[in-house]
């Protein structure tokens, strides 16, 4: 496995406004653990076939995180099948693509509800985030367990604290690069947001140490 590919974590989550705080927490924790997020938002080339793009992202990612928490009907009264579909692609790659070492994490909104709407995944033990960013951070951190080099990861509380610090400073960071605060967000400008996360994690802090 190439050194770059082993860092990739494919993220399959809903792209709606209510989910954005959870998405931002997810992105932050993946990078803080030494990995990098791969998701459909990274490519704005509308000439690409969406399915081809998804297949390529899954092909390049030995790890993936899937959120099945959106089970309500959307604004058009239709259910959204994208997340279960992409989970199926990842499971298919693992089973039939000679990739048994792929690791897949399934998140849900509420524990114990999954069998009622996706009974084929019976026996899996999804993690429930209850729409709380701190719980997403804990789930991601515990799923990854170790850094890509096998090192110890910061604990969930430390990651949550640093995420809160990052969010608090993001308006000033946005201003510093001539953006409005609401323009540097997980969904509004995904590439800029991820680079802000990655660079924030590597800049020395200013807090005193004991």
């Amino acid at each position: 496995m190439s050194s770059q590919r082993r860092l990739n974590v494919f993220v399959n989550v809903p792209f709606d406004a209510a989910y954005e705080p959870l998405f931002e927490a997810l992105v932050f924790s993946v990078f803080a653990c030494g990995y990098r997020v791969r998701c459909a938002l990274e490519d704005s080339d509308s000439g690409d076939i969406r399915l081809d793009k998804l297949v390529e992202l899954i092909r390049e990612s030995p790890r993936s995180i899937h959120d099945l928490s959106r089970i309500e009907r959307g604004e058009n009264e239709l259910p959204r099948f994208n997340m279960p579909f992409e989970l199926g692609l990842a499971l298919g790659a693992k089973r039939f693509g000679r990739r048994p070492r792929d690791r897949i994490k399934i998140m849900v909104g509420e524990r114990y509800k999954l069998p009622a709407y996706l009974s084929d995944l019976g026996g899996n033990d999804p993690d429930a985030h209850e729409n709380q960013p701190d719980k997403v951070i804990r789930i991601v951190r515990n799923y990854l367990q170790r850094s890509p080099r096998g090192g110890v990861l910061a604990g969930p509380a430390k990651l949550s604290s640093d995420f809160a610090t990052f969010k608090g400073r993001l308006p000033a960071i946005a201003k510093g690069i001539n953006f409005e605060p609401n323009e540097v967000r997980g969904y509004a400008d995904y590439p800029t947001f991820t680079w802000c996360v990655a660079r924030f994690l590597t800049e020395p802090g200013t807090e005193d140490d004991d």
Partner: protein
Amino acid sequence: MAKAIKKRDDGKRYVWRDASSGRFLDVVVADPPVKPKGVSVAKIREAIRKSGGGSTSARKQK
């Protein structure tokens, strides 16, 4: 007061103090796959520095 962390060769490390051992630990932070358009990464780094720095409270600038 903690000793300053030695400067790393690649400058892409997220450093923190392990609560149980008290030791400093770190991970290498990966670059995202797509660079932002219309703003340089150096400009982002400068903006973060001016905003008060990053998240790594264990490190203190000397």
